[in-house]
């Protein structure tokens, strides 16, 4: 197995799938006192072994949490009907446990199969992408006081993938907005705001230009707002939001929007707090399914060298714990992580220090244990 990483946590090897180019992960199953099971997806290219260390760091940090990890690969395989799909064992495992944590996935350009992320989204109907962006004390950016959440509709909109060449030189892409999806995302946004003690929800749209499509989205948001009178609802044009976001991000709280605007704005907000290396993200699906992930790339150049920054994945895991109701553990791990970054003694390279990933993780583990 090429992706062998010498790490102390490994106890038994899971059989590697040699027939596919993508290597398998090796890890040791954790904690057996499980009331809740978690499934973790890992998809490894040759270069990606570094992510292993991330995973392990995660395991070691969540030492005391009552979680059992199960690992599955999500390399696309061709189903009997000829369509690309996720391996069936991954799907059943997920259906059973409902919660997942995902590392970065990369679809090679000439892979022949659609994007992994897209497949996951379609399979589990992950309709809401939630990205909380809060400035991290200790990681200096020009924007110090960001505290907002972007909720983005994940299934339709501009990313419906319906494009065609009408005549040579003219391409038409279709943006789809449906009543059902808009209503669903608006309801999720208000529920989220209510459960997390947020004050206002802002709908971001471009209904002055795309009068019918964004008009429908806006109408649905307004209708749902009627049922949540305790939360302030405002609507703002996308360009106004961008303009105001870079001047004063404190005026925003929860933002809800269709797919494309959500993609752009969530990355903009991630940039405000320091980039994708420190931003967590969660995808909520129908039927109670939720997959939490780190949205940064696979960083093949530093894979395997113990240089990766696990903050994004760690914070996503914290989000996951909160989603499951394990607030105590979530708080401990989050505090430990932020304290480590604030102290600035042990930081990975992209945060400004020169420690290794394992050292950073050990520091966080130490703090978690000190807190008990």
């Amino acid at each position, binding site marked *: 197995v090429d992706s062998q990483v010498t790490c102390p946590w490994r106890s038994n090897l899971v059989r590697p799938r040699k027939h596919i180019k993508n290597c398998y992960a090796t890890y040791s199953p954790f904690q057996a006192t499980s009331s809740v099971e978690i499934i973790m997806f890992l998809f490894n290219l040759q270069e990606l072994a570094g992510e292993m260390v991330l995973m392990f760091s995660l395991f070691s940090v969540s030492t005391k949490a009552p979680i059992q990890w199960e690992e599955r690969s999500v390399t696309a395989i061709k189903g009997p009907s000829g369509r690309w799909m996720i391996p069936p064992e991954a799907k059943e495992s997920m259906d059973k446990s409902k919660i997942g944590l995902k590392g970065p996935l990369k679809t090679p350009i000439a892979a022949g199969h659609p994007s992994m992320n897209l497949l996951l989204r379609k399979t589990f109907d992950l309709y809401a992408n939630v990205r909380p962006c809060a400035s991290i004390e200790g990681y200096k*950016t*020009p*924007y110090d006081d960001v505290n907002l959440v972007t909720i983005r509709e994940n299934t339709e909109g*501009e*990313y419906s*993938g319906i*494009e*065609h*060449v009408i005549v*040579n*030189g*003219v*391409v*038409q*892409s*279709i*943006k*789809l*907005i*449906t*009543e*059902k999806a808009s209503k669903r995302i608006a309801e999720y946004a208000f529920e989220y705001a209510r459960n997390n003690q947020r004050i206002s929800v802002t709908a971001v749209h*471009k*209904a*002055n*230009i*795309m*009068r*019918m*499509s964004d*008009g*429908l989205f806006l109408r649905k948001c307004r209708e749902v707002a009627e049922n949540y009178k305790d939360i302030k609802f405002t609507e703002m044009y*996308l*360009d*106004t939001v*961008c*303009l*105001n*976001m*870079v*001047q004063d991000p404190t005026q925003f709280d929860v933002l809800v929007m269709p797919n*494309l605007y959500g*993609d*752009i*704005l*969530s*990355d*903009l907000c*991630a*940039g*405000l707090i320091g*980039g*994708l290396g420190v931003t967590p993200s969660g995808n909520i699906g129908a039927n109670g399914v939720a997959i939490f992930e780190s949205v940064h790339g696979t960083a093949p150049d530093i894979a395997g060298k113990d240089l990766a920054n696990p903050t994004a994945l760690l914070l996503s895991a914290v989000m996951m714990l909160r989603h499951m109701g394990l607030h105590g553990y979530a708080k401990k791990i989050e505090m430990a992580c932020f304290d480590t970054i604030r102290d600035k003694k042990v930081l990975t390279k992209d945060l400004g220090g020169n420690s290794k990933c394992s050292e950073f993780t050990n520091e966080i583990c130490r703090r978690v244990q000190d807190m008990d």
Partner: protein
Amino acid sequence: MAVASLRRSVLSLNRTLRGSWCQAPDLRPVCVSACQRTPERSSVHARNTFKVTMVPGDGVGPELMRAVREVFKAADVPVEFEEIHISEVHNMASEEKLDQLFTSVRNNGVAIKGKINNPMAYKGDLASYEMKLRRKLDLFANVVHVTSLPGYSTRHNSLDLVIIREQTEGEYSSLEHESVKGVIESLKIITREKSHRIAKFAFDYATKKGRSKVTAVHKANIMKLGDGLFLQSCAEVAKLYPKIKFENIIIDNCCMQLVRNPYQFDVLVMPNLYGNIIDNLAAGLVGGAGVVPGESYSDEYAVFETGARHPFAQAVGRNIANPTAMLLSAANMLRHLNLDYHSNMVSEAVKRVIKQGKVRTKDLGGYCTTEDFVRAVVNNLGHQSVY
């Protein structure tokens, strides 16, 4: 009697003359002769003034236009404005006014305008007046100059970007329909011809202004055919300009990089919607919608306006709008008309006022009104350092 009637007819003939040049009415008595001929130019009063269409638009547009007029009057700029009031929200929407606007711009060639607001309610017409204007006049390129103002510091200083945006197609096609109740489709159109045209414009602009890099912004990893075509056209045009570096970046990464390190960009070229986003983002980086000028070009016409187009309706009547963007845009218009002397005079005055920092409007952190600012600019007009 005959003289009076002849003078009247000559004056009315003068008034009906349209074109780039307008002669001031002659003040000497008209010679009594049988043939009607246009009076000779008086050497004292008549000047060659440029005629420019002015569209105040909605929101604070009229206030900003007043500021432009005052500054021009004080600077003695030889420009005469032909005002056309058109609005989609104030019950002034009519096809005749729109046609009147088109004819005016066609005749004059140059226009300065505020933002014509779009009504939010869907009244049956999918294309707004602005879109119609852009399509009819084929104003395909929108150029926004994002430069940091000396004396006003933001989180990112010394920025100097140019954002070029394709303005007639893309997501703003206004082609929408409800296929089934509750399911709406909106079409985004990308054509090779227009992508090629905007790319060529961008590279020509970069060459003319001595810029070194052009970056195409797209989302071709998701919209493979649409933005893929745009990217391909840009790459093809880039081959013709070996001296200018060509790069491309995905829109979400671009937004992130703009807030983390905007200095890596020089000239950005992109389709319609992304242009709207990036224009506003970049305007926010240097101080907001009140300080960034922009213009729209077609093959024959040029329309000057602010960079980030917002009517700012909540400031109407409160005298708090910042006229910097409109004044800088008006200065650019003067440069376009080859009135470099006046152009420099106006832009230097505005920049000096901002640099001194004593008179600032609310959006830049000060307490002065629009009128105070305009007065300060007028006072600073005389002191130009270099001509």
